[in-house]
Structures are given as C-alpha cells and as structure tokens.
C-alpha cells in the first residue's frame, strides 16, 4: 500500500544499491537463507489467504449466483445468474441501482467531509501542541480518549445525546440557546448526516493528531532555528516548514483515514440500527441491508465487488499521483 511510496530512508537506499542484500558472500547456507524469509512470511500469508483472499474469491463467485433465501441452505444449488446481479446494481434508473448510487454518493460526501475535518483538527492540534506549555501532557492524554474508547461505547453515548426529546444536543440548542423553533431530529431525516459526521470526526481525529504529532517529531529543530534567524514568525514557520515537511505523513494518513471511513460499518450501525436514514445510509450498511436483511447474497456480493473495484482504482490512482508528485518535487 503505502510502503512502496514511503520515502526511502538512507538505509533502504543503501541496500537497494547493493542488489541481493548485504548478506555475506558465503554460499554454503544459501538454501537456508533463501528459505528463511518465506518461512517467516508463511503465517501471515496463510492467514491473509484464509481470512481475506479466499473469502473474497468466494464472494466474487457468489456475485454471479442467484443466492437468495431459497438456496442459502445449499450454496452449490444456487443457479448461475451471469451478470444479472451486476446489472441490477448498476441500473441507476431502477430503485435498487438508484438507492445504491445514492448511498455511494452519500458515502463519498461523508468520507470527504470526515477525512477533511479529521485531518484539519488533527493537524491544527498537533501544530498548536508542538511546543511545550503547562498542561500539554494532560491535554494530549485527553485528546486521545476518543480514540481509546471502544467504538460501541462511544457511539451509544452519542446516540443517547442526539435523542430528540431527551438528548443533550437539543437541550443545549433548543432549550438553553433557543436556536431552533422546534427541537430538530438528529437520528432520522436529513440531519442524520450531520450526526454521523460529528460522531465520525470525534472518533477519528485523534488518530490524525497522533500521526501528525509523530510526524512533527521528525522535523529537525535546526530548520526552525534557521528560519527564525531569517526573521520568519511562527505563522510563517508553520506555513513554510511544518506543513511542507508533513507531506509524506499526509499521504499515508489521508489514505488510511479514507479507507477506514469509507468502509466504516460500526458507527452507522450502532448509531442508527439496521435501517439507517437515507441521508446517512453509508455503503457498507446499505450492502449489509441488501444482503443480510433480505437474504439476497448474490446482489449483496455484486455490490461489494463493485465497491472493492472502486476502492482499488481510487487507491491505485492516489498512490500513483502522490508518489509521482513527490518525485517531481524531490527532483
């Protein structure tokens, strides 16, 4: 994923220059040495194969089958459906395809907003907390709490707060501040998008903060000192030194956040239950509903495969673009 695009450390570059690795010229234990890395990789490989790759292949096979409640008992008997499941999923003029497309668009919008906000909050907090000040350690601890809380515990609490009649949010907005004429709904209707976004950002930004803090520690102090001598103020230092130095970190961070947010199932599931309101109908929940609630796994698998293809293309394009962009700046 990001490995290949990560900046080469001095060591790695050095190793590259001596192909075949730096292992000694002795040839006697060659076989053992050649075998060893494979042996070390074997557990990881077997597990990934078992839990991810093979099931994925089965999933792809299923997407070409008419696997409904009538056949779940014995999958082998499910008739082949050709591309029927796919044409159902991508026919945007029919309700199923239209709903999928809408859910997809919602997910894209949600992911963009959530990743953007997480990044913004995380980066800003990391930069503001780059220097030591009294209480910094405590504050850093506090900021990591949302990340440390188990997802369901945190999300259930938010659901409790977003209740219309008894929740904290409306108590503040409506009863105390009087901002709205009637208490708005947060868990149904259009506002549920905002609800989902708030919860997702609350849960996700500390990760950005953590990574950014780590990234900032890699910036040598001398650069700031030199800049300060040149008369650059704090804001200028942030703009000219901090942000550009964080570019490689950003590349990783944005991609990881993107994948996590896009595939997020836990948050909407705990927040809204099995039937999310249209405005917050994220794609993984949508597919869950299309396959598990109605026991139509052929259609559900087809949708998942389309989703996977989309993620592959986006990730690939992203890596290609960012690494090329960096090469250009490096040169």
């Amino acid at each position, binding site marked *: 994923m990001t490995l290949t695009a990560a900046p080469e450390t001095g060591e790695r570059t050095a190793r590259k220059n001596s192909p075949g690795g730096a292992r000694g010229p002795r040839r006697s234990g060659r076989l053992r040495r050649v075998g060893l890395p494979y042996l070390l990789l074997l557990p990881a490989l077997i597990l990934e194969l078992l839990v991810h790759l093979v099931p994925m292949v089965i999933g792809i096979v299923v997407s070409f089958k008419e696997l409904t409640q009538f056949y779940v008992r014995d999958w082998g008997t499910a008739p082949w459906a050709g591309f029927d499941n796919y044409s159902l999923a991508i026919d945007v003029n029919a309700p199923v395809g239209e709903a999928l497309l809408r859910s997809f668009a919602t997910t894209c919008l949600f992911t963009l907003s959530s990743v953007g906000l997480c990044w913004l909050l995380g980066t800003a907090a990391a930069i503001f907390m780059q220097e030591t000040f009294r209480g910094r350690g405590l504050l850093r601890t506090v900021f990591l709490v949302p990340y440390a809380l188990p997802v*369901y515990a945190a999300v259930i609490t938010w659901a409790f707060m977003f209740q219309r009649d008894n929740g904290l949010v409306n108590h503040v907005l409506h009863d105390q501040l009087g901002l709205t004429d009637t208490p708005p709904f947060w868990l149904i209707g259009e506002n549920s998008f905002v609800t989902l976004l708030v919860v997702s950002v609350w849960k996700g930004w500390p990760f950005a903060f953590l990574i950014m803090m780590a990234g900032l520690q890699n910036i040598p102090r001398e650069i700031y000192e030199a800049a300060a001598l040149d008369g650059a103020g704090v804001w200028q230092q942030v703009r000219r030194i901090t942000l550009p130095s964080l570019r490689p970190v950003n590349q990783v961070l944005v991609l990881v956040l993107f994948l996590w947010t896009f595939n997020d199932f836990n948050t909407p599931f705990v927040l809204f239950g099995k039937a999310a309101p249209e405005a917050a109908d994220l794609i993984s929940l949508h597919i869950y509903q299309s396959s598990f609630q109605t026991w139509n796994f052929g259609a559900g698998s087809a949708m998942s495969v389309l989703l*996977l293809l989309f993620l592959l293309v986006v990730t690939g394009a992203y890596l290609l673009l960012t690494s090329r962009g960096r090469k250009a700046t490096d040169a």
Partner: protein
Amino acid sequence: MPSHSRRPVRSPMAAPRSFLWSRRIFLTLLTGFVLLPVYVMVSSSLKPLQDVSGAFRWIPSGLTVRPYFDIWETVPLADYFMNSLIVAGSATVCSVTIAVFAAYAVSRYSFRGKRVFTVTVLSTQMFPGILFLLPLFLIYVNIGNATGIALFGSRGGLILTYLTFSLPFSIWMLIGYFDSVPRDLDEAAKVDGCGPLGALFRVVVPAAVPGIVAVAVYAFMTAWGEVLFASVMTNDTTRTLAVGLQGYSTQNDVYWNQVMAASLVVSLPVVAGFLLLQRYLVTGLTAGAVK
C-alpha cells in the same frame, strides 16, 4: 486548560499573541468537544433511571451507584468481558508475533515475490468486511466439518479473524520501524554467533519496542471494538462486549444509566492501558509510520 508558556522550546522567537490566543481558543473548544460525551457517560451512569429516560439535565437530580451493581445482573457482563479479553488479547499477541516475523523478513531480506507479498497483504486492508463475512463463515464451518477444529462460534475463530484485521497495518508499521533499526546492529550480532532469529529477538525486537507496543495497542483496539463479525460469529458462551452491550436495550426499555455504566466499565481498562502506553505510541509511530 492550555496554559501559556513564554518559553518555547524549539522556536528561539517568542510566539506572537495571535498564535497564543488562537491556540488557547482552539484547544479549549476541542477539549470541550472531546470531553462532552465523556461527561455524559459518567454523569448518566450515576443517575437514577427516571433521570436518563426523561429530559436531559446537566446536573443529576440525585446520584446513585445502583447502575454499577445492576449491570452485572441484566446481562452476563463479566462473561462478555472475559470473552473480549481473551479474544482481543490472543488476537493481539498472535498478530504482533506474526507481524514481527513478516516485517523482519521484508525489512532484512530481499527475495523473490517480496513486492507481490507486501502489495497483496496491504491491499487486504481495503476489503470491505461485508464482502467476506459470509464466505469466511462458510470456510470456518467447512474447516470445522473436515478437521473437527471448531472455528465458527468459538473464540478461536474470532481470534483468527481479528488478528488478520490488524495484520496488514501492523506489518507495514513494523517494516518501517525495523528499517530504522541500524542493520549494523544485527550484522554485529550475527558475527557474534547469533542466527538470523537470534539477531531478530536479541537485537531488532528490543530496539523496536515502541513500534511493537504501538502495533499491539492498535491490534487490541481493533479486536476490542469490532461489531459486525462478532454479531454473526459468536453465541451465548462466546459473545463479546461489542455485541453483549446491546443486551441493555430490552423488550421493555433502554436502561440508559446501565448502558452508560457498562460502557464506562468496559472502557476503563482499555483507556487506561492505552493512555499508559501513549508515550510508546508516539515514538512508535514516529519511527514506523511516518518515516
């Protein structure tokens, strides 16, 4: 809460007012946003049921610790807790061990198929769980039928599943971290007569403790909070907290105070552990993820 030190460490120049003020405002607001649910969780867990099923109040009308006793009666929380602990703990240990081996191989050896391996393993990170939930379950059932190893419905199956969730990220992180451990160190160890594995355990692993801790924390949290697979792959005796907590919304009512108390109880050990280890987390990520 953020106070204003006049002695910046890195910048030889005092920060201007605008910077200090925006820092103060921003960090205060952010602290409020972060702590709001925590306050709600704590205060609601101490409220009587009428309070939490009625209109929200900042200050409880009365305090009670009843919910903290009731939570163990309403659902077998202690059992769920043990299950979660066993599952998340084992998944973490296995995931980290396997990741250490794999990362060592990638970091220290060049071999045929290295790129294929890393790309394949890392790309599994993007698979939507929903795609392989049912097939995976089928595979477990068939392995169970063929070999008698019960994977479906058992903790073992869940451990196996969860450890692969954190594996890609862990491997990738550790590759980065191992790369930053000077190779001269393990070469020296080998000269001293250690085998490759000796070098790994005596030199590389001790040097990479922060990275390994960071990875372990990540693996643990991934397993501790997962809902989707747990809801399909567990039963009465193996149910984990993530699913078990739903037991507080019953036929009759949602016992919000108990939900909050239980959430707090199940969060405390994780949060405490996490915060204790946060020092490692930052150093681990610094070398592993962002280099």
